[in-house]
């Protein structure tokens, strides 16, 4: 029985998820190994190899901390932006908008499902709250 699903198969899990674009995968792995080398190996060993022009090691920790804090603030910022951009209670946008105003009225056909349209709020209210409670 041949499984053609893209989900990780048991024998493939050792190697990680099969990549769709090997270029991105390999370059990101290479970048990560390079970052680890730069962060952990002391300056003197790198200098003895002849690689002298590196940024200060301070940035190895600082950049990761900056990145993590950006993610945390991003969560809070997104929540705040969502709340700020919801319309106030007295805005006309809670009731209707340009699409609803300019919608076409289709003719009613017998025995057919009625066409989809935006029903005015007065009718909706009458149906919900006035009809037999």
């Amino acid at each position: 029985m041949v499984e053609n699903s893209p989900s990780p198969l048991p024998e493939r899990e050792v190697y990680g998820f099969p990549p769709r674009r090997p270029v991105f995968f390999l370059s990101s792995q290479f970048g990560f190994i390079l970052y680890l080398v730069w962060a952990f190996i002391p300056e003197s060993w790198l200098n003895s190899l002849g690689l002298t022009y590196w940024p200060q090691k301070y940035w190895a920790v600082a950049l990761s901390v900056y990145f993590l804090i950006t993610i945390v603030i991003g969560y809070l910022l997104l929540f705040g932006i969502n709340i700020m951009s919801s319309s106030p209670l007295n805005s006309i946008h809670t009731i209707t908008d340009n699409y609803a105003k300019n919608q076409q009225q289709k003719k009613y056909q017998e025995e057919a499902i009625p066409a989809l349209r935006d029903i005015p709020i007065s009718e909706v209210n009458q149906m919900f709250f006035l009809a037999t409670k």
Partner: protein
Amino acid sequence: MEDERSFSDICGGRLALQRRYYSPSCREFCLSCPRLSLRSLTAVTCTVWLAAYGLFTLCENSMILSAAIFITLLGLLGYLHFVKIDQETLLIIDSLGIQMTSSYASGKESTTFIEMGKVKDVVINEAIYMQKVIYYLCILLKDPMEPHGISQVVPVFQSAKPRLDCLIEVYRSCQEILAHQKATSASP
């Protein structure tokens, strides 16, 4: 004829709705908000004074303590006069219009009147408020340009914020009056 029932607002506080039927064409709804509780007042006063005392121990300047007392007093007066609404009233008169009155805890009253010619309908709308979705009653005003358009939305009971059961009661009474008004205005 008067009628009083108790409901709750969106935060769970208790509201009292008083309905007065003056005549078939004139009705009044009065929503009373819960009063300023002693517990919250003492909590706020204690926090402000503790913070001021903390600052005083840092700065050794006794002006901070008297400033804190002044700020608490002025803040309380300002809150009672500008923010804390005691009662909200909606008065509908068939051929005349709709009047909304808010009375503050210090006795101040602010009134808004909308004449019946401008009123298109009174509906219960749902909208996002902070992190909740709430039902609120609002008056839709007619657009002079378009016959079926809406020019403005005026929410009522903004500080009491009752829940749907209370809103349905008010909505049904308003719709009776509006239907009565349309019937009498349609017939010559």
